[in-house]
């Protein structure tokens, strides 16, 4: 066996006890959907794992009705401490079934078992545990006295962290007292189905969480449904725009977690070993299917060659292959469509004059794969420096001064995250102030925690998930009263059509001309 070659060490899939077909989870039961049943496949082998029901508009209607009923008859009447106990139960059940969930997630999504086992699933449990404790402490959430739940939350999540995104959405919604209808991404419904089983084990009252599976059309039926009070979406900026339009003029509250094109800024005084690890983690974690990925490396010019050389060496040691193998660093690309997008954008990068380097690794015969790739000689105008690739592709740009680094980092309509690598604390903090990004990692990257708010500036969306701020997104502020003596004039009613007097728009006021798929 040659250096860095490893014997296969696959995690056994025998821990799974999957059904051949999964229904929709509505009102506490698995039921058939009105749409055509579809396959969910392993992107590493292209083999069918299970068949998934597809919810049509009628099913979405049923799910929303179940959520409304559960909200009115059970969940909104339950004490906060009891709601919290259900969430604690769910956290514990996730921990008990952690390995099973990790294997299912790797199988269905294509991400390495090392990540699902050590990152995704532990964070899922942590998210429920964190928000469980909030359920009976809502008056401390910072939105005023007597905060109220919004009602029924419609949630649409992406395929890059299927179960973790589900936890980010469901945990704060339930803690705040809302009920939920959630739609997983079309290619990654499997762990949501296992999660539905967990909800049954937890004896969560029926209808509090409903799961409708299907394509984008199912999600559209959900977010445009008249009887939802809150819409939360994580996915592409184009779909986010469309949803913002569909929600316009209604009383639905909206949070959007959208795309990113994060700058990872490396100064010449950075601790190089840590910086190189951080760059690799920043863009090659989860095959780069991360909205906050550090996809633009901004490296100080005088250390450019050294950093790129070290990166190439490090990438050459990454192992690409079977997601279930415990030694695998880079798993499969989630779908054929996403692989095609990564290929197209990479070809564009080459066509526009950037220099391409790809790690030399064996690509399996079956499945969807893309070897870690670095582009150097990238300019700020290049497509690969502007568009979100959502794959294991790093664009390297250079800068000379901190001011140039700031200008380049902020030169994007996105504003989700950024990274800074420097040993100089005063410079780090000065940069933090200037970067237009919702999350800034200094001398680290891609860290997530339920206590830490996450979300973007500008076209990366609005609202925050995680922490006290994430809870507030599911609460209606009764607000603090205006100070005594600072009351204000009222309007002649005829002059004002305030939202309180406006009926929610039953249909989107304008049809979107943009296309895009949730991711």
């Amino acid at each position, binding site marked *: 066996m040659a250096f860095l070659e490893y014997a296969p060490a696959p995690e056994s899939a025998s821990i799974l006890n999957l059904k051949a077909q999964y229904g929709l989870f509505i009102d506490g039961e698995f039921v058939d959907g009105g749409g055509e049943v579809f396959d969910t496949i392993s992107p590493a082998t292209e083999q069918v794992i299970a068949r998934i029901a597809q919810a049509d508009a009628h099913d979405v209607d049923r799910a929303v009705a179940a959520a409304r009923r559960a909200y009115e008859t059970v969940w909104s009447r339950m004490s906060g401490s009891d709601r919290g106990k259900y969430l604690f139960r769910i956290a514990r059940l996730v921990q008990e079934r952690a390995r099973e969930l990790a294997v299912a997630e790797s199988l269905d999504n294509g991400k390495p078992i090392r990540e699902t086992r050590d990152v995704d699933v532990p964070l899922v449990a*942590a998210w429920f545990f964190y928000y469980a404790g909030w359920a009976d402490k809502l008056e401390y959430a*910072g939105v005023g006295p007597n905060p109220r739940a919004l009602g029924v939350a419609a949630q649409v999540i992406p395929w890059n962290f299927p179960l973790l995104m589900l936890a980010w959405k469901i945990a704060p919604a339930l803690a705040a007292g809302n009920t939920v209808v959630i739609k997983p991404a079309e290619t990654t419904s499997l762990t949501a189905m296992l999660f539905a089983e967990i909800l049954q084990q937890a004896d969560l009252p029926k209808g509090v969480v409903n799961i409708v599976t299907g394509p984008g059309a199912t999600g559209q039926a959900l977010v445009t449904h008249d009887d939802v009070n809150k819409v939360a979406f994580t996915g592409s900026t184009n779909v*986010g*725009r469309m949803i*913002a*339009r569909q929600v*316009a*003029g209604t009383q639905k509250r909206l949070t959007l977690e*959208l795309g990113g094109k994060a700058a990872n800024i490396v100064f010449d005084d950075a*601790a190089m070993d840590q910086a190189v690890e951080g760059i690799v983690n920043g863009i090659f974690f989860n095959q780069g299917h991360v909205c906050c990925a550090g996809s633009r490396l901004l490296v100080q010019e005088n250390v450019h060659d050294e950093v790129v050389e070290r990166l190439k060496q490090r990438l050459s040691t990454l192992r690409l292959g079977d997601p279930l193998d415990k030694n695998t660093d880079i798993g499969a690309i989630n779908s054929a469509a996403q692989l095609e997008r990564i290929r197209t954008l990479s070809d564009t990068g080459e066509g526009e004059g950037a220099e391409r380097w790809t790690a030399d690794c064996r690509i399996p015969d079956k499945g969807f794969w893309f070897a870690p790739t670095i582009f150097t000689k990238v300019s700020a105008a290049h497509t690969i420096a502007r568009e979100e690739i959502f794959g294991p592709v790093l664009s390297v740009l250079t800068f000379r001064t901190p001011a140039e680094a700031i200008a380049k980092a902020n030169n994007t*309509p996105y504003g989700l995250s950024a990274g800074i690598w420097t040993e100089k604390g005063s410079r*780090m903090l000065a940069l*933090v102030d200037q970067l237009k*990004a*919702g*999350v*800034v*990692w*200094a*001398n*680290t990257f891609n*860290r997530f*925690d339920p*206590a*830490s*708010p*996450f*979300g973007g*500036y*500008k*076209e990366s*969306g*609005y609202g*925050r998930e995680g*922490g006290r*701020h994430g809870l507030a997104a599911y609460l209606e*502020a009764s*607000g*603090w009263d*205006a*100070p005594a*003596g*600072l*009351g*204000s*004039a*009222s*309007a*002649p*009613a005829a*002059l*004002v*059509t*305030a*939202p*309180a*007097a406006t009926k929610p*728009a039953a249909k989107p*006021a*304008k049809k979107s001309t943009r296309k895009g798929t949730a991711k």
Partner: protein
Amino acid sequence: MTRLSVPKTYKLAIGGAFPRSESGRTYEVLAADGSFLANAAKASRKDARDAVVAARAAVAKWAGATAYNRGQVIYRIAELLEGRRAQFIDEISRTEGVSAAEASAQVDLAIDVWVWYAGWADKYAQVAGNANPVAGPYFNLSVPEPTGVVAAVAPQGVTGGSLLGIVSVVAPIILTGNTVVVIADERAPLSAISLAEVLATSDVPGGVVNTLTGSPAEIMPWLAAHADVNALDLAGAGGLDGGSGASWVDLQLAAAETLKRVLPPVAGVPRPALERISAFVETKTVWHTKSML
């Protein structure tokens, strides 16, 4: 013999200057009894775009000022307003047709609203931000930051609100470091322009508050679709005419194109509230490793 008075020419306030509309247009401002008061500038699309440029240019300095400094500057607005009460009482009573006592009460409220918000400037971050106890060796802090340039519609046609309305909209926007392009009450814009003169002498940097007079239904669609505007405050947009494509829902649709933050309309004058500050901030969360000795 009575003295012949010297009436004021009411102009726009853009970037610390007081230009006429580039379009050369004006419209008549009438008193409650229908008599002529003044020709106000009727701002155009170009004026709105110029105002956004001025507002954007002012962000770095205003957002970069210390919160203590912003608090003092905003408090100074209250001080200067107090000293010019007579002028505001006169303008309010003439445009709204209310008694001097009612106009005086409105000026009192406007001053007190400035004072209330001024005090928030160096406390808001402590209320809205916090340290986050993450599970790992990381320093982790969330702080609110201004979102950038906000376009706002002051309450329109609210009796008791021609000054108080614009103050209640502008104060919470600018106290965290945002800059604003605000469209004054179309029918009673005089006190809004006089307020701009107070701002210009209150150490508020030029461009932080840009005041346009004219038709919100005409100007606001341009601002709602402007890619360099970060957020909309539609406080006074509730009554805008949907037929012209400028209803508040149309404005929200236009805002969706660049995912602007949108605060929906309110009836009357918005009450002073923390939520109005929170609507125009971003939460920035910073992680720093604590494990590299």
